[in-house]
C-alpha cells in the first residue's frame, strides 16, 4: 500500500495539537513565568522589579527553607518505602484469599483511599484528641500520660506519615494485586516441585517478577510525597507550624499568605529541581536494578 507521508504527518499534527496546546498553555508557559518571577520581587498579583539572584541567596540562608527541605525528605523517608512494603505485604495476603472474601477484604483496605483529605484529618484528629480521643487510652496505658501527638514536634511528622500510609495504602495494594495476578501459578508449582520453600519462592519468583510494579509504586509515591502539603497543613493548623514545615507549605505561606510571589516562586523552582533530580535518579537506579 502506498502511503502519503505528508498527509500522515498532517493528520498526526492535528491530532496531537490540542494536547500540545493545552500542555503549553497550562504547563510550559506558567513554568517559564514561575522561573522568571523568581528573579523579581513581585507580590502575589502584579509586576515586580528584577532583582537578579537576590531571592536565591536569601533562600540558601533562610532557616525556614532549610527546615522545610529537611522535613520534606524526612517525610519521604517515613512514607515512600514503608508504604510500598506494606502495600506489597497486604496485597500478598489478600491474594491468598478467594472469591467474595477477597473482594470484601480488598474493599476494606481500599475504603480509606476514597476519603477526601479533610475527612481523613477530622477522623484522626478526633482519634488523637487530648481530651476525648480514643487513641489516648492506649497512649495513657503505655506512657502513663496523654500525649498531644499533633502538637509535639518530634511526633508530628511520624504521626502524619502513619495517617498518610493508612489513607493511601489501598491504591498500592490494588497495583500490587494486579501485578501478583499476572504471575503464572505454574511457576510456583514448578518451584515447589523443585523443593523451593516459601521464602525462596518469594525471593526468586515473586520479587523479581513484581519488580516493575514496585518500581512504578515507588516512583509515584516519591513524587507524591515530595509534594506533601494537605495533611501537614491541616494537622498543624493553629499550632507550631515552623518545626514541621514542608516545602509546598512554605511556598503557600510565602506566596499566598505573605503575598511574596517572587520569593514563593523561588522556593517553587527549588522544589521543581529537587523533584526532577530525584525522579531521574530513582528511575535510573530502579531500571538498573530491574535489568540485573
Amino acid at each position, binding site marked *: 500500500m502506498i502511503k502519503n507521508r505528508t498527509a500522515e504527518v498532517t493528520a498526526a499534527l492535528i491530532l496531537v495539537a490540542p494536547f500540545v496546546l493545552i500542555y503549553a498553555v497550562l504547563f510550559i508557559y506558567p513554568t517559564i513565568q514561575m522561573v522568571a518571577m523568581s528573579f523579581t520581587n513581585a507580590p502575589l498579583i502584579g509586576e515586580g522589579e528584577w532583582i537578579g539572584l537576590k531571592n536565591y541567596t536569601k533562600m540558601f540562608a533562610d532557616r525556614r527553607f532549610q527546615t522545610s527541605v529537611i522535613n520534606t525528605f524526612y517525610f519521604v523517608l517515613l512514607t515512600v518505602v514503608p508504604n510500598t512494603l506494606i502495600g506489597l505485604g497486604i496485597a500478598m495476603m489478600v491474594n491468598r484469599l478467594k472469591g467474595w472474601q477477597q473482594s470484601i477484604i480488598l474493599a476494606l483496605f481500599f475504603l480509606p483511599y476514597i476519603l477526601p483529605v479533610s475527612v481523613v484529618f477530622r477522623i484522626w*484528629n478526633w482519634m488523637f484528641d*487530648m*481530651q476525648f480521643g480514643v487513641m489516648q487510652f492506649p497512649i495513657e496505658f503505655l506512657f502513663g500520660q496523654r500525649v498531644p501527638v499533633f502538637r509535639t514536634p518530634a511526633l508530628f511528622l511520624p504521626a502524619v506519615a502513619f495517617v498518610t500510609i493508612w489513607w493511601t495504602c489501598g491504591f498500592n495494594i490494588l497495583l500490587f494485586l494486579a501485578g501478583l495476578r499476572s504471575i503464572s501459578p505454574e511457576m510456583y508449582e514448578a518451584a515447589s516441585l523443585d523443593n523451593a520453600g516459601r521464602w525462596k519462592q518469594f525471593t526468586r519468583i515473586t520479587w523479581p517478577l513484581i519488580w516493575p510494579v514496585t518500581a512504578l509504586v515507588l516512583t509515584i509515591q516519591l513524587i507524591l510525597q515530595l509534594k506533601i502539603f494537605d495533611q501537614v497543613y491541616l494537622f498543624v493548623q493553629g499550632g507550631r507550624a515552623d518545626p514541621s514545615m514542608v516545602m509546598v507549605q512554605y511556598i503557600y505561606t510565602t506566596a499566598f499568605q*505573605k503575598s511574596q510571589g517572587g520569593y514563593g516562586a523561588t522556593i517553587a523552582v527549588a522544589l521543581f529541581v529537587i523533584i526532577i533530580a530525584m525522579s531521574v535518579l530513582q528511575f535510573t537506579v530502579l531500571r538498573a536494578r530491574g535489568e540485573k
Partner: protein
Amino acid sequence: MKTLMKLAMVTTALMTISSVVQAKETVVWWDFLGGGDGVRMKALIDEFNKENGDNIEIQATTLEWGTPFYTKAQTSAAVGEGPDVMTYHISRLPLGVSTNTLSEITADDLASVGLKAEDYAPANWQATQVDGKQYAIPFDIHSIILYYNKDKLKAAGLLGDDGLPKGLDGVDNFKAALQKLKDGGSQYGVSIHSAAGDSQWRIFYSLLNQQDGKFFADGKFLDGDNLDKAVKATQVVADWVKDGLAPSNTEYPASIALFTSGEAAMHINGVWEVPTFTDLAAKGQLGFEWGAVALPTFFDHPATWADSHSFVIPNNVGKDMTPEKRKAVMEVIAWMNKHSLAWAGAGHIPAYGPVRDSAEFKALQPNATYSVLADTAAFDPVSTLAGVASPVYDAAGNYMVPAINGEMDPQQAIEDLRDDLQAQVE
C-alpha cells in the same frame, strides 16, 4: 409556529420595556460567613431583597473563610472580576490596602446614605482607616468573652446577687477562683482552646492591652518594656495550664465540650459561640444555667481583643463602578448596619451605635452584658503582618502555644516571637 413567534415577540417587547422602567441595580456580594453566621446573614440578605427587590438586588456568594478568601479577593480585584461589595475583617485591611485591593470610601459615599463616624465606637472607626483614609464600614465588633456555669460559680461563692461573677478581677484573684472551682469538683476551672495560636492570641492581646502594652509600634515589635508585659501576659495562661486549672493542648471543639459537659466551670471563647449555648439551653440539653461577661480585668484596666466584620468595596481594576451602582452598594451597607440587631443573635456586638443603644439590643442577653467591651476594645496592630490568618497568628502558634503548654519558657518564647516577626518587617 405562528403563535410561538408571536409569543416570543411579545416576551421580547415586555423584557425591553421592563428593563427600561426599572433600571434595577444588581449588587454582587461575597462573604466568608459559614455556620450560624452564614444562616443569619442569608436571612438578612433575603429580607433586604424582599424589601428593596424592585430597585436593588443582592446576589450573594459565600466563599471559604481565611487565607483562601483573601487570596481570591485580591486576585479577582486585580483583574476586575471582584464583587461589588464584600465582607472583610478590619484586622486584614492593611494587607488589602497594600495590595491595592480596596477602594477608598469617601465622605460623599458616607453622606449619600447618612452614615456618620459618630455612630461608631472611636477605636472601631479608627481601625477602618489606613494612613488616614477610610476603606471599610464596620458591621459588628466581635471579641472574646468569659462564659460561666452559674451553678458552679454559685457553689464556689463566686456569684453575686445580680447573677454575675464576682471576685475575678486581678491575676491572683482569678487564679484563686479557678483553684476554688477545681477544688469544688470541676476538672478544670476554665477551659481554653490551648492547642492553637489564634485563640491564645486573642487572650494574650487582651492581657497585653490591659497593661497598655504595644505589640507593634513604629516598625518595631514588642519594643522596650513591652516585651516584659508580653511575657507577663503569656505567663498568666501558662500558670493556669501548669497547675491543671486549664486544659493543655486542647482543640477547639474539645474546649467547648469541656464546658458544655460541665467538666470546666468557665470557658473563654469568641462571642460567636453564644448561639451554641443559647440553642443547647433552649433544647434543655445544657444541664446548667449559663451566662457570659466581658473578660475580667487582670491588670490595670479593662481591655479586650476585638476585630470587626466590615464591608468593603473592592478596587476592581479596569472596571469602573457607575455612580448609581456605588450608591446602591452604599445603600446595602447602610441597610445592613441599621438592621444589625438580627446579626447580634449570632453573638456579635452591632458596630452601629444606634442599634447598640436600642432598647431591643439592651434586652438581648447575655449580649447586652458583655457589650461594654466595645468601649475598651483593642483592635489588632495595624500592619500587613497582623490580622486574621496572618504571620502574627502563625507566630502565636509557633511560640505562644508551646509557651502556655509548658514546652517553652515564656520569656524565651516571646523573645523568639519578637525576633521572628521583626525579621519579617521589610
